[in-house]
């Protein structure tokens, strides 16, 4: 019987119908089909995240993360006058000192697009490190500095040759940069904490680069901080400010109602304060989650801070802030009453506000409402939103966008303390281990797991206790995490739909041609071996490829591989998926293995988590090189 060909149009229609049916099913059963929702028709939203202004303030250049473009807005008319396609998932932007070039980092292309501001087109593409994020140009326009999130360093690019000359070690998840007004220093922040000993307070840093020597000259230590976002300097160069999170991951999250889980705060540095000083922005009974974008008014009168989980902008009086710093007994970052001394306004804005930018005259402040596809314009004298610039995104708010808004908001948590995105920063991880369950102090410590391409990896939780995503995101989150109101059925469906839509990030360990390097080939053979080096058969259940099988390298079973700890209620662990495993350190269910190597060199003494003790160091290295490609 001949097979009837399906036309591409018919096929798309079938896919659409199937997808709509799938969404309908989700709404009813709140159980998304176990495949990626890439097959669901998806609006191409813009998701503005960062902005720069032309030197005369006439134009705004807006990085649109989801549409892979820069939209150019004429401020006076509030009209988009051009859209410039760039690389995948653009994230940062900088303007050259002469205003003739824009530099846009493409996080998923590992490049910088150079845009001619006269022609409004990309004229050059420069290679960077993995997942380039923040970017600045030095004052003479000869060198570009790019923060690479995945490698935790800063690329120094010679703009004359277009070549990357070196990389400077920054913090883990290096993401945001600021140039000092005199051009001598660059400050770099990072979103994941630096590696530390197991179950100790997280530490982060503000990395200080010397633009003359092009080296790291200092690291400002941020104790008990994990998740540092924008950093900004005052025009006189005397005050620096970085937005940050202070997680309380060493105590049970069960006690949200007894105290905060995250401290939303700032680190101040510079001559105005001397050293570094951390200050809270929360109030005793209300939290302003995910402090993200920060800017200091040109006259240094105010600090404006977007709180991405609270749909608001916090306004801080700098004089009052400095007075508090000088008079209060330090440290007072955990004293939430302090913010009343210097927070002068909370301005409601759109969903997931991110980038913040002053107009050149300082009279207007632009806020990128990432999940509204618009820019809020704030009058900096009255601290009011006076207009909104529509960037021209889709008007329909679909399930994915609704779900994404739910993912990023802290509205559902007790006192607005936190949302999903507090731990899953930019829908990834936070590099922390949490004491989540109301099971007693110090029980079942769990490492934060990646959310990439989760469909088909059920059940969830490290013990496999949640059979599906609605259970994971619904009752568990509501009861154990948020301690507050529940999602309704539609909201839960939307949230689950969004979580299931998160794709894999590009894997940088794979060769472009899809082949494996010799080391990766050798590692693959070890991964798939059925006999030990002595020739003895390895029991099936102890072969790597048995548990880590299937397209996502998990057989979705729960097993005891000997990695349980005395603090665990059960040693039975859900087999985790492995794709992009290199990006999610630390490892094991409790994060006790700081590196892939430690999984076997430290935590597999009896060959219960695969047979590894017959491997030479070379062979273990090969295995790890292969795992990085998955």
């Amino acid at each position, binding site marked *: 019987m001949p097979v009837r060909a399906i036309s591409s149009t018919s096929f798309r229609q079938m896919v659409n119908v199937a997808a709509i049916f799938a969404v309908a099913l989700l709404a009813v059963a709140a159980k998304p089909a176990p495949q990626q929702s890439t097959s669901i028709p998806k609006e191409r939203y813009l998701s503005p995240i960062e902005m720069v202004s032309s030197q005369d303030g006439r134009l705004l250049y807006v990085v649109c993360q989801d549409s892979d473009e820069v939209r150019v807005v004429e401020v006076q008319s509030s009209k988009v006058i051009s859209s410039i396609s760039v690389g995948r998932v653009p994230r940062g932007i900088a303007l050259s000192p002469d205003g003739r070039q824009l530099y846009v980092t493409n996080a998923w292309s590992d490049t910088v697009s150079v845009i001619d501001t006269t022609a409004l087109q990309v004229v050059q593409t420069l290679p960077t490190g993995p997942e380039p994020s923040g970017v600045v140009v030095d004052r003479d326009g000869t060198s570009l500095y790019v923060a690479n999130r995945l490698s935790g360093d800063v690329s120094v690019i010679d703009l004359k040759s277009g070549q990357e000359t070196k990389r*400077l070690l920054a913090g883990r998840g290096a993401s945001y940069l600021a140039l000092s007004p005199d051009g001598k220093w660059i400050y770099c922040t990072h979103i994941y904490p630096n590696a530390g000993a197991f179950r100790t307070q997280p530490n982060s840093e503000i990395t200080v680069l010397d633009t003359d020597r092009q080296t790291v000259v200092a690291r400002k230590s941020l104790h008990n901080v994990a998740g540092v976002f924008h950093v900004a300097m005052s025009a006189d160069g005397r005050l620096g400010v970085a937005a940050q999170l202070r997680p309380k991951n060493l105590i049970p999250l069960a006690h949200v109602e007894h105290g905060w889980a995250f401290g939303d705060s700032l680190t101040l540095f510079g001559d105005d304060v001397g050293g570094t000083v951390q200050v809270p922005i929360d109030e005793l009974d209300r939290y302003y989650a995910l402090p993200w974008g920060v800017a200091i008014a040109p006259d240094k009168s105010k600090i404006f801070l977007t709180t991405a989980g609270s749909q608001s902008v916090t306004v801080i009086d700098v004089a009052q802030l400095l007075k508090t710093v000088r008079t209060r007994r330090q440290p007072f970052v955990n004293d939430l009453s302090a913010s009343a001394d210097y927070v002068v306004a909370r301005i409601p804005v759109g969903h997931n506000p991110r980038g913040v930018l002053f107009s050149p005259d300082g009279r207007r402040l632009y806020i990128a409402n990432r999940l509204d596809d618009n820019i809020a314009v704030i009058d900096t004298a009255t601290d009011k939103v006076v207009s909104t610039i529509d960037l021209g995104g889709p008007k329909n708010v679909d399930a994915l966008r609704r779900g994404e808004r739910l993912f990023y908001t802290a509205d559902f948590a007790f006192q607005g303390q936190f949302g999903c995105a507090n731990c899953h920063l930019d829908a990834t991880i936070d590099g922390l281990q949490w004491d989540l369950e109301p099971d007693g102090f110090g029980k079942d410590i769990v490492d934060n797991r990646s959310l990439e391409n989760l469909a088909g990896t059920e059940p969830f939780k490290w013990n496999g206790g949640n059979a599906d995503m609605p259970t994971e995101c619904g009752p568990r989150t509501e009861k154990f995490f948020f301690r507050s109101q529940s999602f309704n059925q539609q909201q839960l469906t939307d949230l689950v739909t969004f979580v299931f839509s998160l794709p894999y990030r590009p894997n940088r360990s794979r060769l472009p041609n899809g082949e494996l390097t010799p080391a990766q080939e050798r590692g693959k053979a070890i991964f798939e071996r059925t006999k030990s080096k002595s020739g003895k058969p390895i029991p099936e259940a102890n072969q790597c490829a048995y548990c880590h099988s299937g397209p996502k390298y998990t057989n979705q079973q729960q097993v005891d591989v000997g990695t349980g700890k005395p603090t665990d209620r059960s040693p039975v662990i859900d087999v985790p998926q492995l794709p992009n495993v290199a990006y999610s350190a630390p490892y094991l269910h409790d994060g006790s293995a700081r590196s892939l190597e430690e999984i076997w060199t430290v935590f597999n003494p009896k060959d219960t988590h695969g047979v590894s003790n017959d491997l030479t160091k070379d062979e273990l290295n090969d295995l790890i090189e292969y795992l990085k490609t998955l």
Partner: protein
Amino acid sequence: MKFRIWFAALALFVVASLAAIAQDMPRFLWKNFTVADGLPDNHVFCVLVDGNRIWAGTENGLGLYENGEWKILRPVGPEQPGSEQQGIAHQAVLALALDKRTGDVWAGTMGGLSHVSAGRIDNFTQLNSGLSNNIVYGVGVQGDFVWTATAAGASRLNTRTGQWSLFNNRNTPMYEIWTYSVSPAADKVYYAVWGGGVLEYDQQTEHWKDYNDPDGENEMVVMKDQGLIHEITTSVSYVDKILWVATYFGASRYDGRYWHNFLQKDSGLPSNFLNQVKGIDGTHAWFSTDQGLAYYDGTNWAVYRPALDTHKPEMLVRDASGVVKTISVQSAPAHNYILGVDFQGDDIWVATAKGLSHGIRQKNSVAMAKVISRETPKGKK
């Protein structure tokens, strides 16, 4: 009368020649540092100069001398969990290397490899990384790669990708895996393999080649200059396409085609027991021996040390003919057991078994170059 005039002229010429040689050889005023000055430990394995910053790897910590003060880095003990202070991998620091592009320092220790970057320390061990072994005798930086010489072969870390590559008896001609020193350059990387001679890695072809006893029957060369002097190598230094090698039984120089060997008996080396060699270029090199610090300018030799018998400061100069003279000096390195050197402009810093020494180059050496004795080698007059 004519004879007396001739003899006087000859004597004047000899003295002038000797003075000229003495004058050409570098002279130093030695300032020595010990624990009394803030040095972490008197047993100094290695020294590294980075501008005005001096790093000293000792048996009990890594010292940083800057602005007249010592700062000490050691491992952070378990009594300081969560401390903001970061420690190095092990207190015994055996080797140091500077990444000149970034200013970062890499320290090879008895417990792993430490990366020191503007106050931050990241430690790589055989358990938490792909490092082949925790005992890191040598370290070198070339571009994005950090090469280490360990007690279980060589390791190379690609700092951009995080990939570790191991080189040992399984994938190189390295029949001993006790690598002791590494000298990486853009074209070649050389390893001193203790008991295994020298290994050469070609950066372009990615092939390894070994240099050992040429006849393969002994550990050492039999015919002078036939090949590497001895297989128990301790240090390599590759500069200007010239390889300098230190062994426990003499030193070698290799230009890619010809070997030239140096022994105590036929050179100015004060001993055949060498801990380190450091080439300045293809002609000049410094040798760290158990009986003093030696300098070779391609023709003449100088030795700096406390005299082996009296322990008084001593400087010896040996010319091409083998004539050795003793130069009057007022100071000497802290000890005659020398482990390593590095350079700060014209100055030299020396790691010894009893302290760290700073050799401050003396410019106006004419008046100071006083020859106080002269020895002629046997068979010569």
